[in-house]
């Protein structure tokens, strides 16, 4: 009986995502349709000179893909760390009223640890773009 109930609940939960599935289908269909129309309808007469990269009338100096500065990486990894912190907050917010004070204390500790990290990167100057 339990399994039947579970299956019913499962169906109900998944049914909520039906509009999202539909939305994804529409988005994919629309994107592909626009690209296809452009490919079929638009005139295309490629030539070697026409397709070559344009750099103010000179020959191209270097590859368009150049090395990124390592500082972008630092910003990205700091972003991921705080992004993960937010991910932990979602289930906490859902069950907060059920667990109560203990939940508050542990989340304060969790965030306090990361705030220490935040102060650290701030004082070290990692957030400054030189």
């Amino acid at each position, binding site marked *: 009986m339990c399994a039947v109930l579970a299956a019913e609940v499962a169906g109900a939960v998944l049914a909520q995502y039906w509009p999202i599935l539909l939305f994804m289908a529409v988005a994919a269909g629309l994107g592909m349709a626009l690209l296809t129309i452009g490919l079929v309808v638009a005139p295309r007469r490629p030539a070697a000179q026409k397709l070559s990269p344009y750099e103010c009338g000179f020959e191209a100096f270097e590859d368009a893909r150049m090395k990124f500065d390592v500082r972008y*990486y*630092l910003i990205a990894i700091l972003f991921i*760390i705080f992004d993960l912190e937010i991910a932990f907050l979602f289930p906490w917010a859902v069950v907060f009223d059920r*667990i109560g004070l*203990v939940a508050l204390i*542990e989340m304060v500790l*969790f965030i306090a640890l990361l705030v220490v*990290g935040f102060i650290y990167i701030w004082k070290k100057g*990692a957030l400054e773009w030189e």
Partner: protein
Amino acid sequence: MTIQLLAFYFFAFFAVLGALLVITLRNPVHAVLSLVLTFFSVACIWMLMQAEFLALVLIVVYVGAVMVLFLFVVMMLDIKVAAAREGFIRHLPVGIGVALIMLAEMVTLIGLRAMQVAPPPNPAAMHGESNVAWIGTALYTQYLLPFEVAAMILTVGIVAAVALTLRHRVGVRHQNASQQVAAVARDRVRLVSMPAERGDPGAQP
């Protein structure tokens, strides 16, 4: 249930397709984008299994943040595309061979029958709860300590990232906003009183 099954095959197809493209595409940036496709399809499959929280975290953290980092790294490394692909075809038979041996070992050890066992019912659904609430209850009561240790690991990540990549350049001119805001007229113009020059008119050329 049939729609569910259809959706599963659809997403599974794209997950495998994306994974294949990751290892076969020439351009590393395209490979990273294929990885995004794989992650997204896997997130949809998890959604079908009602692991809603994991599916959303996969999209928010992996697709949203980790893949951006991957793109930065790929661009930072300046990978020579041809060099990275050298030996791909030559090593392919070895790779496939290893994968087949692994598969054979797994099948003999675990047995095909184990795969036909019905999975246990979803405990969250049986209690009429959402998956997020179920995970939250477990995470913030029983798995409280691992949760706090996760914060420490994230802090190590911060310290390590700063220690390994932060470099201060010398001689950089900054705009100091707080100093600008706090500035008053006195700081900008200095009024100096000095005796008027009264030179000898006859001395001028």
